[in-house]
């Protein structure tokens, strides 16, 4: 039974141990899902977690390269193209008929453009897979791209831009990305701005759709499909895609040498704080130790050092946390919290103190063990549906990882030592390198730059 039960009273933990033994005798423990590698008759490679206990499956696909490839004056193109492929009708069916046909057969089909990839998901009852396959194939190879749907979905995207523009989390994040990646497409707006959306034409959409080629494709699936069935399904959906087209290469995103502190004045009672610093890529040998360090610092929910100091002990916020953002060309750690204006400087000071103390004193062996237990225990708990399995595998494939990556990752996590965590705290997690964005009317903070609240029309204006 768990070693941390020691936290609680003896009688209590004895009962836990007895119950735990009873339970572990009565139930099989499931390990990580087994991933099969499948090569279709047409030569498309796919990963499969086969499970026939529910009569359904999820198939996920991705094309390397996403909104980062949008030309600067055409931001929003990848997202609009994805919407048109998923919702604009295909082959013999107009948009409405296409959607009705999917829904009436219990199938869902979606395409979304992320920073680094265009991703899609097909979810279908097993006995409707013929319909699902036909519709997904037509959506990718014979989309209607009707001007009326182009206008309709572009209008919807403009509305989404205007809605987001009123969201303080979005506002702060936009300023942060514009601050740290001023010369790299990573600062671009995924949904575009009203102006860049007005620049888009159906020809732009056709061009991007033509670039979704087999050379950039990865496919995964989970659920009630045999490897033979999956082979047929992927050939039918993707077999007709062109093999390849030349790709645009992107330069690594370079983090600024000097940290920046940006004030974004906004009326209101609260200040939204965001803070970030650069990290190594997940392929770096330091990555797992960084994960452990982040969990101890701010990733571990209410039990992290930052949550303990700012929320649990002082009650200064509803939430504070840090997370890791591993992107294809840049990785970074980002933290955020919302505090009352009057307390902003005090909270910033607390964050810096707690962080520096963790760096100076190092975590305890127990901290490291708890973080490892969490991160190791959490992985199988995240894989609880055919969708989470297929989409989880898709991320591995987009990141060029092997099929046993989950097991390898857990092994590397288990091998992390206290010294490793101290080393990455020292090497990567220096709070004096943090770039800050404070959106609100913060008291007690000093800034090197001030920007306007970004709206849906263009970048924030800074001085």
């Amino acid at each position, binding site marked *: 039974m768990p070693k941390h039960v020691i936290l609680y009273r003896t009688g209590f933990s004895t009962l836990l141990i007895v119950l735990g033994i009873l*339970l572990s005798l*009565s139930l099989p423990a499931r390990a990580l899902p087994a991933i099969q590698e499948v090569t279709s008759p047409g030569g498309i490679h796919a990963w499969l977690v086969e499970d026939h206990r529910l009569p359904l499956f999820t198939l996920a696909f991705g094309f390397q390269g996403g909104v980062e490839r949008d030309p600067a004056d055409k931001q929003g193109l990848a997202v609009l193209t994805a919407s048109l492929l998923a919702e604009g009708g295909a082959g013999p069916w107009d948009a409405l008929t296409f959607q009705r046909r999917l829904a009436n057969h*219990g199938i869902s089909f979606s395409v979304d453009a992320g920073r680094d990839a265009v991703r899609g998901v097909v979810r279908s009852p097993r006995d409707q897979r013929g319909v699902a396959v036909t519709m997904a194939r037509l959506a990718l190879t014979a989309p209607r791209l009707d001007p009326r749907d182009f206008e309709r979905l572009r209008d919807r995207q403009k509305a989404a831009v205007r809605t987001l*523009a009123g969201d303080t989390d979005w506002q702060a994040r936009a300023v942060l990305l514009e601050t740290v990646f001023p010369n790299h497409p990573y600062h671009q707006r995924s949904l575009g701005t009203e102006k860049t959306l007005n620049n888009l034409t159906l020809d732009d959409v056709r061009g991007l759709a033509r670039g979704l080629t087999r050379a950039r494709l990865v496919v995964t699936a989970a659920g009630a499909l045999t490897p033979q069935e999956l082979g047929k399904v992927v050939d039918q959906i993707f077999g007709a895609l062109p093999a390849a087209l030349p790709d645009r290469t992107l330069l690594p995103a370079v983090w600024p040498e000097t940290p920046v502190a940006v004030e974004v004045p906004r009326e209101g009672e609260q200040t939204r704080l965001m803070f970030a610093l650069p990290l190594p890529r997940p392929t770096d040998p330091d990555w797992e130790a960084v994960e452990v360090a982040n969990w101890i610092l701010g990733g*571990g929910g209410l039990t992290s050092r930052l949550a303990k100091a700012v929320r649990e002990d002082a009650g200064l916020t509803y939430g504070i946390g840090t997370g890791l953002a591993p992107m294809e060309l840049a990785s970074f750690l980002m933290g955020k919290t919302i505090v009352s204006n009057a307390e902003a400087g005090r909270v910033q000071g607390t964050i810096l103190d707690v962080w520096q103390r963790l760096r100076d004193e190092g975590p305890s062996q127990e901290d490291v063990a708890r973080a490892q*237990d969490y991160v190791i225990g959490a992985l199988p708990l995240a894989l*609880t549906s055919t969708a989470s399995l297929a989409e989880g595998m898709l991320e591995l494939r987009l990141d060029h990882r092997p099929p046993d990556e989950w097991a390898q990752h857990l092994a590397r996590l288990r091998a992390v030592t206290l010294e490793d965590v101290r080393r990455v705290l020292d090497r990567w997690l220096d709070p004096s390198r943090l770039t800050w964005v404070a959106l609100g009317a913060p008291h007690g903070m000093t800034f090197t730059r001030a920007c306007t609240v970004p709206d849906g029309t263009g970048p924030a204006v800074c001085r």
Partner: protein
Amino acid sequence: MRFLGVGVVLGSLLLGAGMLPASATVFAPQRVRLANGLEVLVVSTPLVAATSILVGYRAGGADSPPNESGVAHYLEHLMFRGTTNVPPGGFSRWVADHGGQDNAFTTADGTFFTTLVAPGNLAAALMLEADRMQNLAILPATAAPELNVVRSERRQRTSDDPEGRFVEGLRHVLFPGHPYGEPVVGTESDLTAMTPDKAEAFYRCRYAPSNALVVITGPLDAHATFALVAATLGRVPARPVCPRPPLPSAPSPVSGSFTQREAEVRQPQMTLQIIAPSRGALTAHGMSADAWKATYALEVVAEALGGETGVLTRRLVHERRVASALNVSYDPDVRGPTVFGVSATPAPGVAPETLKRALAATLREVARAGLAARDVRSAKRRLGYGALWARDSVTAPGLAFGTVWASGQRADNVEAWPDRLRGITHAEANAALRALDAEKRRVAGSLLPEVVGVGERP
């Protein structure tokens, strides 16, 4: 922790869930009631290496004593702040140490605690739930900062958020003088006057085994799981529970419209909120078979009108192009009166007032002409597939049973859902739609930018 206000977006879980055409049930739970009154449901799911636990209490925002709005939600927070056995934060710490996740949310009807752990840790998690069901320690040193956290949560979600203010204001206009018109998180003044004692009294009053439900979902053997529950939560002594204050039916709104202008809002949003029957209210006040049936018919109507291909979407988004997106919602599984909502975003260049009129007028046209048989059939079919997908989740069963049970219904009404929906006829769907259209208790809500837009009058 989160609180769920029952707001403009009333997405019923069961609208997303649904029936499996081939089967008469949804999750097929095993059910027992323990000697101390606790109701236990166990759902066996394949495909997962995780066990999800939901513990629900029939104690929500609408159960607050007068001038104590927010007490249920404050108590939800305090349930993580330690017991006589476990230190403050110890529950979350134990869960996190095992890679699990814990969270909680409060609605108008109930408070729910959710924990996700590996199957081997189920016993310990149940032990901790049993502990905080009976041994909560509300201490000044932790209860006072936690109240600040709650106030900060209110600021973040409501008072400092234009949409949050809009939802709160709309509910207030829609349910004047009714507990459902009060925010679950609490009003500013009630939170200012809140004390740990009030939370303690609420706990003593309502957190008892006979007022609780536990739903356990995972790769489980039901009998072994019942034995575990009996050895943990089953040992919590039975206690008397304070009676739930009855919920009045919906009053007439003071005004038929609610408009809020916000400097930060760039994109107008419109919503038409119409009072509609709920299964919780029908359970409480005694029901006719027809009224009961009408709630299922309205679920079919909501699906036939909204979504990607519903009649309103077709007319207003695709044909007339006055909206760029449209959403229809109806949640029948609440304890008091509920709302049928049609929400939409005006298309560029369309004045909000035009869309506002179009929502009501088009709903009326469709109600008068009637839904086509084909649209009703296809809505039923779409809803039906939802149940298959709901089973591909380890958390959906707990949420579905929990909300239905907290509304005062039997939890396993969820299982009857496919048959009930299947039985709805074309004529019954249209009758429900006509009754909805005839309902006078309604509010048209508009969230608008402060700057006066195209075609608008100040």
